[in-house]
């Protein structure tokens, strides 16, 4: 059963934008698309750890600000010729609020240990 944590109002993230969340085990990037869908991914590019929350969001993808790798927000897969994947976490919008599944914190702690 999912246990959703209320993170912030949807409006705190711009459309086609992203914000970063700090956790004890590193940072998460929360993305909001032009259609108000939200996604949560590790805030680190598989290439050289570029902060994805600073990238340009387009469609359901983000372009890393450091060297322009393009990463799918849905799958975390690196698009195009480059290879790699970023961890993704369940996220949704409810009543104008961004919600993340508490499991992501647990998962990250497990991953970190």
């Amino acid at each position, binding site marked *: 059963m999912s246990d959703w944590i209320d993170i912030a109002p949807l409006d705190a993230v711009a*459309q086609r934008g992203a914000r970063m969340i700090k956790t*004890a085990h590193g940072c998460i990037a929360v993305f909001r698309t032009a259609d108000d869908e939200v996604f949560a991914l590790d805030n680190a590019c598989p290439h*050289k750890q570029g902060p994805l929350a600073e990238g340009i969001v387009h469609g359901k993808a983000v372009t890393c600000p450091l060297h322009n790798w393009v990463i799918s927000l849905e799958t975390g897969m690196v698009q195009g010729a480059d290879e790699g994947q970023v961890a993704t976490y369940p996220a949704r919008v409810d009543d104008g609020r961004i919600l993340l599944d508490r499991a992501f914190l647990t998962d990250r702690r497990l991953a970190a240990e």
Partner: protein
Amino acid sequence: MSKKLIVIGAGMATGRALEHIFDAGADYDVTLFNAEPRGNYNRIMLSPVLSGDKSYEEIVTHDAAWYDANSVTCRFGERIAQIDRAAKTVTAENGDVLPYDKLMFGTGSNPFMIPLPGHDLEGVIAYRDLEDTERMMDLGPDNKVVVIGGGLLGLEAAAGMALRGVDVTVVHIMGHLMERQLDEAAGYLLRKALVDKGITVKCSANSKEILGENGHVKALLLDDGTELPCDLLVMAVGIRPNVKLAADSGLAVGKGIHVDDQMLTSDPDILAVGECVEHDGAIFGLVAPLYDQAKVAALTLQGEEAKFVQKEISTKLKVTGCDLFSAGDFADGEGREDIVFRDPARGVYRRLVIENDVVIGAVMYGDTADSNWFFGLIKDKTDIAEMRDTLIFGPAYQGGTPMDPLAAVAALPRDAEICGCNGICKGQIEDAIAEGATDLGAVRAVTKASGSCGTCTGLVEQVLAVTLGDDFVIPAAASICGCTDMTHEDVRRMIKSRTLTSMQAVFQECGWKTSCGCHVCRPALNFYLLADWPIEYQDDPQSRFINERKHANIQKDGTFSVVPRMWGGITTPDELRAIADAADKYMVPTVKVTGGQRIDLLGVKGEDLPAIWKDLNDAGMVSGYAYSKGLRTVKTCVGTDHCRFGTQDSTGLGIKLEKTLHGSWTPHKLKLGVSGCPRNCAEATCKDIGVICVDSGYQVSIGGAAGMDVKETELLIQVPTEDETILVIKAITQLYRENAKYLDRIYKWLGKVGMDWVKEQIDDLDNRQALVDRFELSQSVYRHDPWAKHIEDKAETYQPLANLPLEAAE
């Protein structure tokens, strides 16, 4: 027995009529008189003969063998003196009397000679026949000629002689050249092109008298007293239908010989064709309608039904080296509207005149490739309401099923110009391909097509594809990115022409394939929109690269650098103290003096940005835009303040420039330098815009670079005052912003448009001021300190969205 047909004049119209008659096998025994001592030739081609491109032999349309084969009795060099319509005979100049069954007039026109005092001097000629042409061909670089008349004929004469090195002056009474075919703007462009060819052009000039010496022309005297010396004077001010013989023989004449739809005169046995006729109130001066008349006359002579209908005519002028087109009616008038397009970079001007949603007139200069299409709209009276917005760009920009570009290229005539810079036509490219140039590089090497500015590269490739079929695969067109097939240039044109003031509008109107673009197209579009519509468009931070979105340079570890402006490289102990304090307070790991005469605080955490900015703001410092495609630094030297060689206050000017330009967004970064003397300690000559101060003023040069390419600037202009220097620099910045492709530094853009064009824009004072005005309009929105703004209304977004300690997991 064959009927006797006597033809008066072996001109372009009668030549064509005779062809039709013989082709149809009509039974006529033809006698052909011609006042000129030769048979039919292509009069239009006298201009290439004059310029030396063709010989007379090459423009003969009917030779002795042809007359022989069709049993034409030729009486060339003989004029018909008289006609006796009652007896149905003609009398030749030598007194011979010949009977006719049918008579055909084709006496053409007489050049009109203004009856100025001296017009009958030796050396005053018209431009009508081979004799005139040969007179002009005898001249060379030692001669001076005055041409009266800035119409088609006069300009062809002038251009042809100029090619022979003759010193030519054209005197035109009207305010602009070819006023009957061109409007003022196109006339202006034409004049400029002719002046470039070394021809002197005097408009609004009234001739008063032709001066002579020993019976030979010596000079033309103008109303204002100017005397233009000349060895030959060519009058090309118009033509009058040659009707004397017809009038003398009692035929109905007005401006020309009256004919009906069958080309019959008031005497049913006498026809008339060509420039000598008047049909339904109109007279004719171009060959297209004459050919129609010739056809009708031939059918009439064979007793067949035929009817001459006047058609809309267009002029594609062939004034050496200039591309001109005009058709229909383009006078201003009540209820008429204009659509005008100018592409100064390519020297292109287009104007359409519209009445009741129908195009009634068109003038094109510089790019006439689509002229057939526009002419079709005029002829067919097509309703253009639907395509009005993009009409001026031609068929390629019309909606519905997009035109297949290959089909459009295939349909182009051989003389359609493909490469404007080098004047290469489709035919020349086809020939080069036939001779073995089967790829772009080879075509470029052989013809130079696409070798200059490169904007026609796609067209050249399409010609290759059309000519070679499957053997040539067009390399993918350089579209902006995968979201669109359009190039930067295409999109920018759409943004301007369709007044697209939002990114959504661009996506919609240009058929973007993605919902919201990508990291490649969005920053470019954001720039184009804000540059073209500074007031209407709202800057979109989400379409900016992180550096511009957060006004700080991102580092490899995700931290940022902070660079406050130091106007013109000048700082103070207080500023330095504030920087030192900030560096301590925010634990900045590196403090570095940059190559741009200021101080960089490297390694600042994203969350700390608003706070460190606030501290710097409080000490009077603002963002240095060290991250922007916009104004970066204005590097200066110490100048007259301290230096023993300084000629002007270079530091002061640098500061003023930085203050006026700061905040402006440009296609790529913009760096300036101001040096106080040619020793150039501020390295001004490798900046995008450089100023070198000299005793007499300020040399402004542009197009330098010292990054991946190292370039020295080229001189744009020298001006006497600081104020003018600033105006010039605002204007050049605006020109660059309005015209360059996103991510082209000035030197790259300059390589495409050429320094000559840029100079013209800046030298023209009205244009310069208009650029400055548009620059200031844009700066009224963008000249501000983004740090202060972000501290005020965006500080929160620099913080994490949430901070979830470990316990939250439990």
